């Protein structure tokens, strides 16, 4: 079971100084930065997935890449651009979510082929069009809705056929995409893809589904799948079901979820093998959107806020060094929190984290490197590293699940 990490410019600046909060002003973005595979001494994924839409942008909207970065991406190929050792796998897809609202996919099969082969991907996923609906016992898909689902499924299958025919001269291994709105319709797609000649099939549109729904789809597909058919789950991260997935022929999946939760989740954004914690908020007075609004509207005094923010940081750093007591840290944090958080205080959650000090027990390179900063919710330098730590934890969990499976066998 391989885990792919979908990249969208997720790297950190190694020159960032956590005490002065400055980075090397001459740094060149991306080139001088570090990806997760460069930051950790052991892998946190088996490969990366890169979307054409992220690199190229879609219709008038620029992608995540600058023009010059994109040209270098094509010039250097995916391995050199990401400084990715050759033993990692790479997978390309179209980024169907970014054009899901369009009537038809915005790329041609030829453009997609050119993208995959110029970039030197290991695997390439055929051009697809997302289906949004999913049937539940209470809500059947019918009428116009059903027509649209069928139309999109048809497009996806047609493109898959063309994609496979043209794949003869290509250097990457092709994946067909199965979309559906019910277990049976997913199975129909898989039957057709197998008939066209695919033995690698990606299952798309499953991100919003419940785990039980995903398992139902897999069960249904299992009845018709050829034994050598391998499945990739697009955007799905349900580690607790790894063994079942594997039994149904799933050999790989991808997800940004561990990283995204480190960045965005409000409650459980620092993960460990046994427990999920809440990061300690120390918003930047002059950079945090919420703080800026509060200052601009006059509801808080900027000088006061700066003072409290600084007090929080200093006491946290002092706590890490063992010269400031937890009580003092918490009082600084609650004092500051009163300014920006009108909801229930999070002091108990913060107390819990400071008591357990989970970052001290974590063997990952990020925690060892930046200590308590990993648990501070405060701008990308810390938040993205916390996301990387979560990736590490997720990958370790996956490996231990896989070990358990092997022992059963």
């Amino acid at each position, binding site marked *: 079971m391989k885990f792919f990490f979908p990249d969208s410019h997720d790297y950190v600046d190694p020159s960032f100084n956590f005490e002065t909060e400055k980075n090397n002003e*001459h740094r060149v973005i991306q*080139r001088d930065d570090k990806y997760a595979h460069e930051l950790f001494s052991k892998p946190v994924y088996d490969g990366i997935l890169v979307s054409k839409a992220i690199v190229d942008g879609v219709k008038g909207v620029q992608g995540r890449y600058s*023009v*010059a970065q994109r*040209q270098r991406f094509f010039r250097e190929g995916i391995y050199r651009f990401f400084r990715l050792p050759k033993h990692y796998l790479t997978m390309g897809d179209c980024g169907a979510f970014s054009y899901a609202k369009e009537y038809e996919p915005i790329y041609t099969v030829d453009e997609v082929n050119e993208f995959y082969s110029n970039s030197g991907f290991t695997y390439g996923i055929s051009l697809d069009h997302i289906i949004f609906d999913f049937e539940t016992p209470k809500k059947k898909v019918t009428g116009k809705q059903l027509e649209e689902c069928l139309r999109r499924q048809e497009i996806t299958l047609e493109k898959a056929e063309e994609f496979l025919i043209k794949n003869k001269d290509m250097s990457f291994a092709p994946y067909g995409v199965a979309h559906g709105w019910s277990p049976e319709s997913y199975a129909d797609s898989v039957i057709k893809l197998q008939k066209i000649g695919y033995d690698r099939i990606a299952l798309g549109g499953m991100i919003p589904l419940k785990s039980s729904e995903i398992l139902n789809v897999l069960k249904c597909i299992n009845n018709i799948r050829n034994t050598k058919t391998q499945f990739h789950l697009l955007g799905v991260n349900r580690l607790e079901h790894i063994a079942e997935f594997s039994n149904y022929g799933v050999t790989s999946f991808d997800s940004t979820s561990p990283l995204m939760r480190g960045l965005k989740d409000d409650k459980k954004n620092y993960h460990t093998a046994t427990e999920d914690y809440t990061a300690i908020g120390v918003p930047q007075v002059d950079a945090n959107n919420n703080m800026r609004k509060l200052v601009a509207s006059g509801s808080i005094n900027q000088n006061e806020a700066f003072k409290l923010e600084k007090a929080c940081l200093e006491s946290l750093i002092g706590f890490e060094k063992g010269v400031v007591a937890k009580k003092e840290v918490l009082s600084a944090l609650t004092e500051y929190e009163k300014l920006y958080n009108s909801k229930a205080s999070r002091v108990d959650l913060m107390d819990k984290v400071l008591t357990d000090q989970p970052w001290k027990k974590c063997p990952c390179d990020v925690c060892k490197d930046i200590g308590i900063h990993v648990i501070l919710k405060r701008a990308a330098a810390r938040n993205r590293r916390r996301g990387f730590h979560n990736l590490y934890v997720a990958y370790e969990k996956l490996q231990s699940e896989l070990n358990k499976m092997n022992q059963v066998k």
Partner: protein
Amino acid sequence: MNTIIVPALKIEQGPGRALFSFAIKGKEIQSIASISRVKRHEDELVGYQRPEVSNHINEIKRYLESENPMIPNALVIAFNSSVKFVPSDHNKSFGELVIPIIEGDDSKPGLIVDGQQRAAAMREADIDSFQMPVSAFITDDSQEQREQFILVNSTKPLPKGLIYELLPYTETKLASSLQKRRFPARILDELNHRKDSPFYQLIQTATNPSGLVKDNSILKLIEASLNEGALYNYRDAATGTGDIEAMIIVLCNFWGAVSDVFPEAWAKKPKESRLMHGAGMTALGQLMDEIFARYHIDQQKEGVSREQFKQDLEQMKPYCHWTNGTWNFGEDDKVKWNDLQNITKDIQKLTNHLLRKYRMEVWK
């Protein structure tokens, strides 16, 4: 020798950094300070001010002549060392500035670093007793004057081109957006003023208005290459500078080859040649990075010769239409040579076209 003596306050801001604060009659300013206009003497940059803006001066003049004018912000003047501060006996911070007055316009002891429009308005206005506050420092170093000029003026909209042209001749710490441009601006300056450079005097700047290529186009391509392309290989990440000689060689080899391969399009007005146009420069800059990458393998120090660039560019000739004909960007996308504009969309099309052809037909 005539002198003006004014009471002054000495403010020490750091070791060797003294500032003098005093007031002087508006009309007397012109006898102690002049304006340093930016120009070039034999490829050497002198001066730093832009021309006066008469509208703005007239507005200030009208205000000065009004009933009860007040100008709270001081002029900034850089004096040369002919000006002396004589401290009083009891307090070193108080004293008098002794400013020699020299006839004629050439060698006034002071240069106005900030406030040239205000100074001009005072010269023109019908006022006699208006006292103007002045902040002054004493230095014979023209670099320091320039630095102060940029620091004081970078918050106001000075013409960008002028700032870029001054940048290489400064060393002090500037706002980081300017800081980042200093090194590229230095490379541009070298390209424009080295006699063996293919761009010799071809780049349009504040002091070289007859240049054909816009300074900004060249700066952009240098920056792109420093970040993403060939020049990155010679860059020093810690300082943001690098091996400038090696970089100049790459640039001169490539653009020299361009001028060899496309003589009909080189050194023409952008109107007559899309090569000398922002779009052509940007796209070719990317092609330079691409060709460089083909020859320059990792860990191999050697650069890419003019001959190597030339050889690859020759093969690109059939796909280029800088001065006539039609660009063939795709089946339904043909663009007449002079319909190509210096806008993002056209630049991208041209870049994609050149790089795709290069990858498919030359590099393979």
